[in-house]
């Protein structure tokens, strides 16, 4: 290493900075520079592939962690008070003692952070040392290295079933067509295979050393579905997009090996996509902050009263012996000492601002989330996924939801498509056999718990090749059995589960085809053949081979279809049932076997991929027989209709929609050679453009997709299991469910009936997108909301994602209600607009899940999540917070405050400082946290059985404005009792300070714990251990402390105080009397419980019955309450 001047180093650093910031990056192969020092490497400015997700380093842990922690206002407040305590004139405790609580809180948090960071460090290390193959010029082959050694500009070889170490530009694959299949499940959860193609222009026999081009790519970004670059071998531009990029974290499938050029290391798309947990502030927390503000006012008032002690000082005739001047020997003036006293009081009463509350809430939420994620009822075996809680601090909001906004596709429905009916040339083929099949199957699927959705195929005699069909059947059975035995999850199966293949052809249509098939050689004009050809060709379905190790059920001829969207797979399976088998698909060709057995190879000239603006995709092929250029287009009905001349089969489409089918239209166009040639030039230009490439590509696509001829079809998206039941329960729980869908009104209404969102007697608002735009205009908005408020449910059809989020926003703002949005695909806007966004990890599109606060795998999980966990989390947290205010005010602050009236407002404490601090930190901290995590007011069965109970949490809920003040008043009352009973007993006696304080402290502990005991609704072993443990701990620690500490904490000295007291019967008599009197007002609760039964109490009573009795009672109760009119009530 040669010496470099600082100037050179700075220049180097600046160049690096510039190179990284540039919009376009030029990358070169590292191979020619292999073995040279770092300064000569062409790609030296770009970071290496080693990842470091740790936040801290070993040396800097303490300063960095402290810096991080002091971002929290509460900690600053605490430290400020501790510092204030170091000022001699105002201190209330010994300075060191005041540091204890903040130190303990800081070090606990630091320990937690350190542990998390250490786990990250370990996983980083493991990942960085994963082996991979990098090409070495010296050894003329790929040699094994580690992930961390991968640099930008390297050539990396990945083999089948291995994870890709960095973002690679695919240059070569073992596949003759230059295709490499990857599974992106690690990135977005999608389990279907995605096809990547090698950059064209690089020949099949690829040699890394001969690569002499420059790769120009854009600056790293986090868009998983977008990438653009071009390559310049021999000064000729070759464009490449996301279809040639292998993303880090994906797994190579079905491809023996592939070689890629590293474009991004470390700044990979997957890394850039890792955004941390989301921070939202819950409604309860906002409420809480207001009350903390009241606490500040209370604190200020109490400190002011303390500062008034100067009046008392003025009243003294002389200087009493107990007024000790400061070290300089001169007493401060009364005014000045009052001023100091104000701050002393703040230090003394600081606990009134419940700093420990925030820490406790955090701990409670961690516990609640642990319990939610561990709920086995929210686990989906099919995808082997639990519920994911991404937002860590809004669990209690789940118990307050009043409006749910739901998408349809993938949310209410499976998003697993089945081909149902079609309409060709104006003739409708209803596929009655399929319907019969579905009906027959229904009871069975309801009986068995829904995981097994396999449909039993009926014996049919329809097939052209009946033998083959039979063997296929048996095979399918076999594979299914195997899948049961092995417990193969459906995530492995993606869209090739047996369900989709289960299409029984329509008899009439089959005859029609066989007729045309037998009359041969007239295919080109036959619309039926054309229809099926279009279905077979116009998609992006990949045929995967048997060599793979992925355990997927095989069809008879070892064909498995992997599609990016479920409807495509459904269609291809449908055509297969009619004998049109998709045999192979490469970027350049599609191979189709016709019913006659004839195999046609279509040359694919171009694929105009699907995008959400066009809502359609097209494939341009050259017909092998007629040599015509044919464009097949497939898309949503309205996306195709606008490109047609006459409204064709509209009647059928409407009819499909009424049945709740999703309709797709297939269209065709023959393009003349001249038009094609002309178009091709523009297309080429668009493809190599870096700026506005998407727009250009889309424009070219739109240019071609005109004047189409229509063929039509309808496919069904099945409802997810238990959707009607879930929606019923949610509605009984007083939650309004809105469905916002892009579908047609007819489809939406049909689905609405199917999932019991609509019932005949209901007042329902069905509104479509265009009307909605008007309804949401500023002047009509109020009326719309008023109308919607009175409707039992609202269906919005044909709405765009943007409109969805606007609807949510309007309702949320106008009605001031808690809203929840559920989506199974890509409606990020809507999810983010709501108070809680829930993503359903479904079949396509994981953006919703990524942006959501909670991700579930089934819609039905919503029921337990809201009705049980929501209710629990909310009541637990609300009650814990109320209790916390009470606890801090009662024990700590008020007892000290009352004492000030008897010690000349001097800031004295009648309890040893250490015990005072221990009291809050150890003796009484665990019970409320346990209460917040584990209390269970009503059993899950009851909450699920009587959804009306959910209403108690809605709106104001348990935690109201008055609740806070009632608990503060309660605390004042109890503290008066706890202070003044001992006071009157010991008045005018020879009692000393700590001996007086001991029964106060003990009574406070008992009152606090017994108060909580009354709040606790169900006592488990944990409760007993924690509660009794706290009491024991108090006595053991205090006894040990006052037995051992002779002079360890001067000038406070509690030596043998508790021992003395415990030998005195008066101590027990005082404690018993104070505790009982303090808790007497609870009898009012008891009276209320027995006389005016709140639904929650009634439910608790039912909970104690045995299950069968309870079942009966529940029914009776529901009917008696009319299924709805549950009064809201408070718990505390």
């Amino acid at each position, binding site marked *: 290493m040669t010496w470099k001047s600082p100037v050179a180093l700075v220049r180097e650093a600046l160049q690096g900075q510039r190179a990284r910031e540039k919009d376009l990056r030029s990358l070169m192969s590292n191979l020619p520079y292999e073995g040279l020092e770092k300064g000569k490497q062409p790609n030296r400015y770009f970071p290496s592939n080693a990842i470091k997700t740790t936040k801290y380093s070993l040396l800097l842990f303490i300063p960095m962690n402290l810096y991080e922690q002091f971002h929290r206002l509460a900690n600053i407040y605490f430290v400020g008070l501790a510092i204030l305590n170091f000022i001699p004139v105002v201190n209330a405790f010994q300075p060191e003692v005041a540091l204890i609580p903040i130190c303990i809180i800081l070090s606990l948090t630091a320990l937690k952070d350190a542990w998390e960071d250490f786990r990250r460090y370990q996983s980083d290390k493991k990942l960085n040392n994963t082996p991979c193959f990098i090409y070495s010029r010296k050894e003329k082959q790929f040699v094994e290295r580690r992930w961390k050694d991968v640099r930008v500009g390297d050539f990396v070889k990945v083999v089948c079933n291995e994870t890709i170490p960095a973002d690679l530009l695919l240059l070569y694959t073992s596949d003759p067509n230059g295709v490499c299949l990857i599974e992106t499940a*690690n990135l977005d959860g999608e389990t279907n295979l995605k096809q990547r193609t090698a950059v064209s222009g690089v020949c099949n026999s690829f040699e890394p050393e001969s690569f002499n081009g420059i790769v120009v790519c854009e600056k790293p970004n986090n868009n998983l579905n977008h990438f653009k670059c071009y390559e310049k071998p021999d000064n000729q531009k070759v464009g490449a997009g996301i279809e040639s990029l292998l993303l880090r974290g994906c797994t190579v499938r079905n491809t023996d090996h592939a070689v890629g050029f590293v474009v991004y290391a470390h700044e990979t798309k997957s890394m850039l996509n890792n955004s941390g947990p989301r921070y939202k502030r819950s409604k309860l927390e906002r409420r809480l902050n207001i009350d903390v503000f009241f606490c500040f006012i209370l604190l200020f008032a109490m400190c002011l009263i303390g500062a008034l002690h100067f009046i008392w000082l003025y009243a003294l005739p002389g200087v009493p012996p107990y007024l000790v001047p400061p070290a300089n020997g001169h007493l401060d003036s009364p005014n000045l000492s009052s001023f100091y006293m104000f701050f002393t009081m703040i230090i003394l009463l600081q606990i009134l601002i419940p700093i420990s509350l925030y820490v406790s809430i955090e701990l409670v939420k961690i516990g609640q989330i642990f319990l939610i994620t561990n709920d086995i009822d929210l686990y989906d075996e099919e995808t082997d996924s639990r519920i994911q809680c991404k937002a860590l601090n809004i669990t209690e909001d789940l118990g307050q939801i009043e409006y749910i906004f739901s998408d349809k596709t993938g949310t209410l429905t499976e998003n697993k498509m089945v081909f149902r009916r079609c309409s060709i040339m104006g003739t409708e083929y209803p596929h009655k056999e399929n319907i019969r099949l579905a009906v027959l199957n229904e009871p069975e699927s309801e009986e068995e718990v829904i995981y097994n959705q396999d449909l039993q195929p009926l014996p049919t005699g329809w097939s052209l090749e009946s033998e083959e069909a039979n063997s296929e059947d048996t095979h399918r059975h076999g594979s299914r059995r195997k899948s049961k035995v092995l417990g193969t999850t459906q995530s492995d199966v993606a869209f090739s589960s047996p369900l989709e293949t289960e299409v029984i052809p329509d008899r009439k249509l089959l005859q029609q085809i066989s007729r045309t098939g037998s009359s041969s050689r007239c295919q080109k004009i036959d619309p039926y053949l054309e229809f099926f050809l279009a279905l077979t060709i116009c998609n992006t379905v990949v045929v995967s081979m048997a060599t793979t190790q992925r355990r997927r059920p095989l069809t008879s001829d070892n064909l498995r279809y992997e599609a990016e969207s479920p409807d495509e797979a459904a269609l291809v399976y449908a055509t297969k049932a009619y004998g049109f088998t998709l045999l192979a698909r490469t970027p350049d060709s599609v191979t189709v076997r016709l019913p006659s057995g004839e195999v046609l190879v279509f040359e694919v000239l171009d694929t105009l991929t699907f995008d959400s603006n066009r809502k359609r995709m097209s494939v341009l092929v050259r017909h092998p027989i007629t040599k015509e250029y044919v464009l097949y287009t497939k898309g949503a009905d309205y996306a195709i209709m606008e490109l047609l001349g006459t409204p064709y089969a509209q009647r059928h489409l409407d009819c499909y929609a009424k049945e709740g089918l999703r309709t797709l239209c297939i269209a065709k166009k023959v393009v003349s050679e001249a038009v094609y040639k002309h178009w091709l030039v523009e297309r080429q230009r668009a493809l190599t453009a870096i700026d506005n490439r998407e727009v250009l590509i889309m424009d070219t696509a739109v240019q071609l997709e005109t004047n189409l001829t229509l063929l039509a079809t309808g496919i069904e998206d099945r409802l997810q299991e238990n959707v009607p039941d879930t929606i019923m329960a949610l509605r009984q729980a007083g939650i309004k469910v809105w469905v916002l869908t892009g579908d047609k009104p007819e489809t939406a209404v049909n689905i609405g009936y199917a999932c019991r969102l609509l019932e005949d007697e209901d007042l329902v608002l069905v509104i479509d997108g265009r009307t909605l735009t008007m309804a949401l205009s500023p002047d009509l908005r109020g009326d719309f909301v008023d109308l919607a408020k009175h409707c039992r449910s609202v269906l919005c059809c044909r709405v765009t994602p943007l409109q969805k989020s606007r609807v949510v926003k309007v309702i949320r703002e106008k009605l001031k209600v808690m809203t929840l949005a559920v989506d199974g695909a890509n409606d990020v806007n809507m999810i983010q607009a709501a108070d809680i966004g829930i993503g359903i990890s479904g079949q396509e599109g994981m953006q919703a899940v990524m942006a959501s606060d909670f991700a579930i795998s089934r819609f039905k999980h919503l029921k337990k999540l809201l009705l049980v966990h929501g209710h629990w989390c909310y009541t637990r947290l609300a009650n814990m917070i109320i209790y916390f205010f009470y606890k801090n005010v009662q024990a700590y602050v008020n007892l000290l405050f009352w004492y000030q009236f008897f010690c000349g407002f001097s800031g004295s404490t009648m309890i040893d400082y250490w015990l005072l601090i221990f009291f809050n930190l150890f003796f009484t901290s665990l019970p409320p946290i346990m209460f917040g995590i584990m209390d269970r007011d009503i059993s899950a069965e009851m909450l699920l059985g009587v959804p009306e109970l959910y209403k108690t949490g809605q709106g104001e809920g348990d935690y109201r404005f008055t609740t806070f003040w009632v608990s503060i008043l309660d605390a004042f009352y109890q503290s008066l009792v706890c202070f003044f009973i001992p006071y009157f007993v010991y008045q005018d006696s020879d009692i000393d300070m700590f001996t007086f304080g001991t029964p106060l402290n003990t009574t406070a502990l008992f009152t606090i714990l017994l108060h909580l005991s009354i709040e606790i609704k169900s006592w488990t072993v944990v409760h007993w251990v924690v509660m009794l443990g706290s009491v024991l701990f108090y006595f053991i620690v205090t006894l040990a402390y006052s037995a051992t500490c002779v002079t360890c904490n001067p000038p406070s000295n509690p030596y043998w105080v508790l021992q003395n007291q415990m030998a005195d019967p008066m101590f027990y008599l005082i404690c018993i009397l104070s505790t009982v009197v303090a808790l007497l007002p609870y009898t009012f609760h008891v009276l209320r419980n027995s006389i005016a039964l709140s639904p929650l109490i009634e439910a608790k009573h039912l909970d104690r019955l045995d299950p069968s009795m309870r079942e009966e009672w529940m029914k009776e109760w529901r009917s008696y309450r009319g299924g709805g009119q549950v009064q809201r009530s408070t718990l505390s």
Partner: protein
Amino acid sequence: DVKSYRKVQEDDDADGARVGGNEKFTNRPDNTAFTQQRLPAWQPILSAGIVIPGFVLIGLAFIGVGVALFVTSRSIQVLERDYTGDESGTPCASCANSNVQNCICTLNITVETLFKGPVFFYYGLSNYFQNYRRYGTSKDDNQLYGVLNPSDNCAPYAYNSNNQPIVPCGSIANSMFNDTFKLYQTVNGTRQEVSLDGKGIAWWTDYNIKYRNPTNNPLKDAFNGSNSGLFYRNFLINPIYWSKPAYELDTSDPSNNGFVNQDFLVWMRRAALPDFRKLYRRISQDKYPDGLPAGNYSLEITYNYRVYRFSGKKKVVFSNVSWMGGKNEFLGIAYLVVGSMCVFMSIVMLIVYAKFKFPDEE
């Protein structure tokens, strides 16, 4: 960023396991009673059926305790006499108004009936805030434990103007109560001194553990510095308000001097409330095994302690004690009141409950 990244990795592991074919449901939560929140639980409901009998029981028990306390308290005899002398005509008025040291005044006391023993003799102060915070910190526990060097806590009563250390230092010691009392019984016109017992009036732990004299023998050596063996060059000084040094607090009993003087220990245990009494002596049980017989007594007070600066009062108290300590009617009455309230409320609850439970019978 880290969390989701780790998730990717975990998925990675899960995937690996799946390919291996061993673990099927790697993400399946544990089906335990704890994680599924199915721990067996006792769910008490405070209903009238439990509460009403509970109240009756508590009420009766409280009334029992209350009666016992009340009766005991009534049996305790207390005799209190104020001797502040702030009103003219009272025996100690002359002493209160003069600044004479060791001013002596006499209080005549008549005991009507036998004052049952053991009789405790207290002095009482009012409006005196021994619990004042800065006053309370103005002492040095370590010094009182035998390490004579005064700490900063004692300032400004740590060193005198000649920079000599004060022992015992601090404001509490400095302000020690220094009135003394002698009790005489007048029998047939002659005064007969009632012997008072000053042993064991402080806490046992204070006398034996918490407070320790320096090990010098005689104790005086530790204080005069000349051959104390300590590093002080200076003589140690007694607190400015004290008239005699710490090693001469009790000339009659050498073991009752220095930091372990009983009166000193009693004073150092700070009173919790501004009106307090402190034990001064016990009436010797050897001479008066049954207590103080009825008759006339005179109390000779050596009046030193000034209380007019804080409008305080001084008093002497004679009292006998029971298992519940000194006389206190409050606790007994409180128990009686709360007990009866419980019984009363349980009756009210029963009536209300019955009305709601059986409305038809109205």
